[in-house]
């Protein structure tokens, strides 16, 4: 198996799905963000976002906090420490793939 293929295979499949990757990218830039703001930023539907968040929460990448603010339910989302580490590792893998491609072009 060549090095590029191995790097691609090592990409976290949970993060590699584009919807979840977009969610994690936004969450990585903030401490916590309300569910509705995340939904509006990404233009996702409530259902679509909920499903992705549930999968990320099951894996321990995301924490969801449900509170009542002024008698209205407010769900906020944030990356856990494990989620940040997984995202950092994912970025490192992408960077390595890019570097590998550059190396091939030079060769």
């Amino acid at each position, binding site marked *: 198996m060549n090095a590029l293929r191995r790097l691609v295979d090592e990409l976290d499949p949970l993060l590699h799905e584009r919807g979840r*990757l977009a969610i994690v990218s936004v969450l990585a830039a903030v401490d916590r963000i309300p569910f509705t703001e995340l939904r509006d930023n990404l233009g996702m539907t409530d259902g679509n976002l909920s499903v992705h968040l549930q999968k990320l929460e099951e894996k321990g990448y995301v924490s969801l906090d449900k509170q009542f603010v002024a008698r209205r339910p407010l769900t906020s989302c944030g990356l856990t420490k494990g989620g940040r580490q997984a995202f950092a590792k994912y970025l490192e893998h992408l960077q390595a793939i890019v570097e590998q*491609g550059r190396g091939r072009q030079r060769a």
Partner: protein
Amino acid sequence: MNARQAAMNLEVIRTLMERTTQYQLLTARAGLAAGSLAGVGALSFLWLDRNNPWQFGIVWGLVFAGSLLAAAIGTVLRGRERGELVWSRQARAVVTALLPSLFAALVLSGYFFARDLHLWLPGVWMLCYGQGALATAAYAPKPIRSLGTAVLLGGALTLYLGPDWAVPAMGIVFGLGHIGLGGVLFAAERRSMVPRLHQSVA
């Protein structure tokens, strides 16, 4: 996935993270409009009397209001164009960062006008503007930081040069400064990859 796709993924991730933390609805058109208004304001004193506090105050008040209006219209249009919230977390952060400088500028304007010292105000306004621009540095596009630093230095120089340079300094710093900012933003807008994230990830 190949290297090109990986590079594109990294670019989209970077864009998403920047959009989450940075206020990016500031438009080149708004910068150019503000610069042109300041230039017209400065040129108007070829006919108006700069020593008259009413004329001085009305001209620069109109320039300020017009620039604010241009920025608001530009922001709303850009928000619609990109399908993004106008009163977003980033917009709130920028406005909150600007408020102390705006308050200081208003108080100092009242103080200087009341004592017929209005020709010292351009330097004061520049110092307040520069401080405000730098206060937004964490959330604003990079050119704003450079503009903030330049205006801050311009304010110090304007105060040093004194009232004789009040009107030309306004034209140079706010007029040419904003036109320069508009040019830089325009170049950045043409360069930037603007993925329709709300469509692509949904």
